[in-house]
């Protein structure tokens, strides 16, 4: 894969919990990943961003979406992204605190690439991020990951 052709990807986080937003950002930062993080406070905001023509050049390379959100849930975001040909290629990772089998099955049914149970180890996030194909991350060479 020709990495040079790829633009450094934006990371979109759809999350209504302030604490989780901080934890996510902190995890990215601790991993020395410098990609932009687009934070949407709920599903509605995320959809507004994704379907806004003005943001066409700033589409995320990967979306992390919390399942349980008021109004528009993570599943809704996932469905709309996968239902739009222009956005369908964006990998979506579902975040949840639940371990319900049903949620996992639904996530994969709707086309999520991964499913992450929020744990006390935010490093898991980074493993997913780095494993996502076709994404370019800006990593500070001089810093090593700490955990």
């Amino acid at each position: 894969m020709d990495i040079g052709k790829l633009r450094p990807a934006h990371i979109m986080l759809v999350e209504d919990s302030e604490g989780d937003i901080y934890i996510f950002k902190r995890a990215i930062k601790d991993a020395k990943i410098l990609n932009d993080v687009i934070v949407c406070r709920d599903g509605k905001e995320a959809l507004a961003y994704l379907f806004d023509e003005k943001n066409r050049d700033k589409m995320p390379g990967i979306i992390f979406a919390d399942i349980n959100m008021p109004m528009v849930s993570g599943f809704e975001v996932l469905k709309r992204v996968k239902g739009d040909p222009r956005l369908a290629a964006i990998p979506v990772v579902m975040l949840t605190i639940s371990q319900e089998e049903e949620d996992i099955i639904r996530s994969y049914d709707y086309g999520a690439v991964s499913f992450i149970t929020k744990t006390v180890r935010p490093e898991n996030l980074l493993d997913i991020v780095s494993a996502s194909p076709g994404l370019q991350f800006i990593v500070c060479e001089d810093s090593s990951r700490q955990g």
Partner: protein
Amino acid sequence: MRDARTTTDPLLNPTPMREDVDALGVSFRSARVFIVDDEAAVLDLLSGYIEGEGYDVRTFTDPLQALSAIAKYRPEVVLADLQMPVLPGLELMTRAAAVSPDSCFIIITAFTTVDTLIEAIRFGVHDYLTKPFSSPDAVRLVVRNAHKKRSLETLNRMQATVTGTILKLSEVSCLGDTRDAFFSLAGRVLSRILEAPTVASVYRSGKDYSCHVSTEYLLSNAATDQLLAMAMNSMGAAGAFARCNVAQELSREDITAPTVHEFKSLVPVAVMGLEGVEAQYVVAHPEAGAFRRDAVKMALSFARSVTLIAQRHFMGATHEHQMIVDLLHHLRDGVVVVDKDYAVRFVNPQARKILGVIPEAELSVCLDAVDSIDPSLAGRGAPSGFSHSVQKQVAVRVEGHELFFDVQVYAIQTPTKVAYRVIIFRDVTHLRRERSRIEALNVELKNLNRELTDRASRLEAVNKELDSFAYIASHDLQEPFRHIEIFVQFLERDLGLRQSLPDDILYLLQQISKNVDVAKRLLSDLRTLSRVTRMRNPYRRTSMVDLVEEVLQRFSDTVQQKGARVVVEELPEVVCDAIKMKEVFHNLVSNALKYNESESPRIAISATQDKGEVTFCVEDNGIGIEPEYFEYVFQACRRIPHKGEVQGSGLGLAIVRKIIEEHGGRVWVESEVGKGSRFLFMLPNRPE
């Protein structure tokens, strides 16, 4: 006869009886004395001697002629010559005794020897006279003695019959069904006493009369009528003759006597009841002067005894009647007796009061209803005399009070088919009031019950709310604690190396982490417990072998790591909530592995079946439990203080118990410290 009706107590004032024999106007028969001798001179002499003694004397020179007369007239005394050419005296006597056993025999002889006398006595001769006769007085004395003897013998015999009959009559009632038998027996005995072949009897039964003629003759209608008319007249009931039933009873089939047109000897005998003549007999004989005075006397005396017995029966009945009337008077129910013509025959005081307030129309309805029932159908199987009844409740308003009466009308068939109706009024006002009070109480009780049910369901709702609150709380509180935990990690990282931190800050950080751990575990416990309560899964027939295998899969790593041996015996299929049952085995297997310090841990899972109940057993060779903790271990959030570093929620067995109890079963433990534990749970048989 009429005066009998005025007597108040017949036992204290005996009904005058016609025991005065002469007042009967009957011509009596004299004692018969027959003399048989072939010498007419002797006959003349002897009849001359006893003339004036009052005997009916007849003389015979021909012994054969004498024999047939003896057979016919049965004389009291027979004098016969011992020496007669045609028929010697002793032989005549033998033959005469056969036809007239009661006759007393005297022989006449010219040659008296001891041998002759002895032989004569052997033949049953009573006395003897020697020719020539010593004196007329001697002859008279001999005859008189013989007659006396004969009378005494007859009297004794009759007395015995009479006594026996009286005893028998005392036992037979002259009331009801046995009435005819009573009077008929008395009539038969009368005819025997009087040695008469015919007796006419009339018994009173209610307003009717029952007539009966018993005879050895074939009677002409005129003769029968003569007898019955006489009996009826004596009874003072001549007018009733046309209504009575005449029954003629011929006691002999071989009737030789000619039809009798007129009876010349008649003895009327009455049996008195409390209200006059109850039975009248006429004993009849076609010949004039056929009855002896002493026999008639005895017949009258017998009738007197029968009268006393009958009166005693009637008296008893009267007492009984009075008792019933008294009872009816004091009864709380009103009683009215109405006859077939709707004439009121009896009313007790209570009924009189009630009749004053009950509308007549209501009663007519009841009476009509009872009359509309076909007695022949209704009476089937009913006790004797009792036919059928109709019941109705009547409400009446008296002086502003509402009264309720149960009106019951009975139709009663007497043996003579006269129907009575008995109306019974029962005041049920009190019962009605009581009933409505009970109904009111019932309504109150129902309301209370409803309130209780409401409260119970409200309580249940609150319980459910609490459960779901616990679930939501435990669920939602996980987030903040997770955040705190991560934030502490970040904080530690931001503060730099732990060694460089001041002791107190390090301590505080450690305390935060430790407390977060405790809180998280508690939340997890709470969550599991509330989930067990909340979740209801369908009961299905489940293979427990498969279920247990699935559970053991989860522990395969631990089993391998500990080098444990797990044995699963044959397990039956059970209808259960499979998801929860997995939880049960999960917890039991988890404990069996967790609390096991043996070098070669062993777990055995088995089941036994008994009368549809299945008992499962999870056995281990672990550390065991002390008996005082057998119950304690199943309580929520309890863990036995244990020195080892075994981690547990302290909730596993509580969850197990909750699930087993939800299945209608029970769980218990058998254990020995240091040897191992057996966790057993019983599940009842349950349809799919």
